């Protein structure tokens, strides 16, 4: 009798550990997916409002201050806009990198994505980083007023990255939902 009970106990223990890993793994993956979704929403709402970004790099404000014929005022505006532009750029890059790292951590494992989609997300991220670096250099060298075009291109690159990330997250979530359904109590009997 003991010959049966011992291996049975070990078997049950192993089964329990495996079940725990399976459930825990799924929960953490779900958590990471929801983190990625939050990070993406945060990036979109807080750092990509086009009206505000347009204002930061607007040339008319500089023309208006130039009309005041006071060198100190122009210096103040340039310094202030440089600070705000750098703040925007730094946080947008940080948030985009966070979305990318969450994608690498969770969604990529959850969703068997097509090579085209994988390339798309990598290319858009690379384009965004290139635009960011160009914009940063231009802000420091020539000031925000003369960096408007590059700022718009950076915005466009970040928006494209968001669109592809959204697509990828939707795929990953659909796949996760499918897996959860299959491993849940309503698993179909085959």
């Amino acid at each position: 009798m003991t010959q049966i009970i011992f291996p049975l106990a070990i078997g049950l223990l192993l089964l329990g550990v495996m079940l725990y890993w399976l459930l825990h793994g799924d929960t953490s993956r779900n958590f990471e997916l929801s983190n990625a979704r939050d990070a993406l929403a945060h990036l979109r709402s807080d750092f990509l409002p086009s009206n505000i970004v347009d204002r930061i790099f607007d040339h008319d404000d500089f023309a208006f201050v130039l009309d005041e014929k006071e060198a100190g005022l122009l210096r103040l505006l340039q310094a202030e806009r440089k600070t705000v532009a750098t703040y925007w750029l730094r946080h947008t890059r940080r948030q985009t990198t966070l979305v990318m790292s969450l994608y690498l951590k969770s969604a990529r494992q959850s969703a068997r994505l097509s090579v085209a989609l994988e390339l798309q997300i990598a290319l858009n991220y690379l384009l965004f980083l290139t635009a960011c670096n160009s914009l940063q250099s231009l802000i420091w060298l020539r000031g925000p007023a003369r960096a408007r075009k590059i700022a718009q291109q950076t915005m466009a690159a970040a928006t494209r990255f968001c669109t592809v990330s959204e697509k990828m997250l939707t795929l990953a979530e659909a796949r996760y939902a499918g897996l959860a359904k299959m491993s849940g109590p309503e698993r179909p009997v085959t």
Partner: protein
Amino acid sequence: MLTRMHARAAVQDLKNRTLAPLHGDIARLVYLSATRDYNSGKYYHDGLALRFTEEIANQALAQCHAESFQKVAEIPLRELVGQLQEYLESVCADEAIQTWLDLEPYRMLMPLTCDPLSAKLFCSNVMIALTILESRAKKQRKN
């Protein structure tokens, strides 16, 4: 559903009765932020609470505050200087410019829900606008 309808009606009521007579976006923003309790972050308006409920009045004021702030954050500097001048003249211009520059009360005009980028641009723009007004006032005094 009914609450949402009441909230919409409260927003309309607030815009028509209270905000419309105020002159300029800055004046509206100052008024709306002054209805907020700085400790709890909740908005209070007796008239609106009497017509609707305290919670609906809070929601309506918060929504109008957020809209008003976004509008001011997005206006060009030229317009902001004009509006700020108009507002400060309606209180007591010369002292007000210096007080606003020293105490930075405009930081209290931001709603709790505003995004950090808008908040940063708003504070920066108001500070620049005040410096422009101060410089103009100095020039006027010299002349």
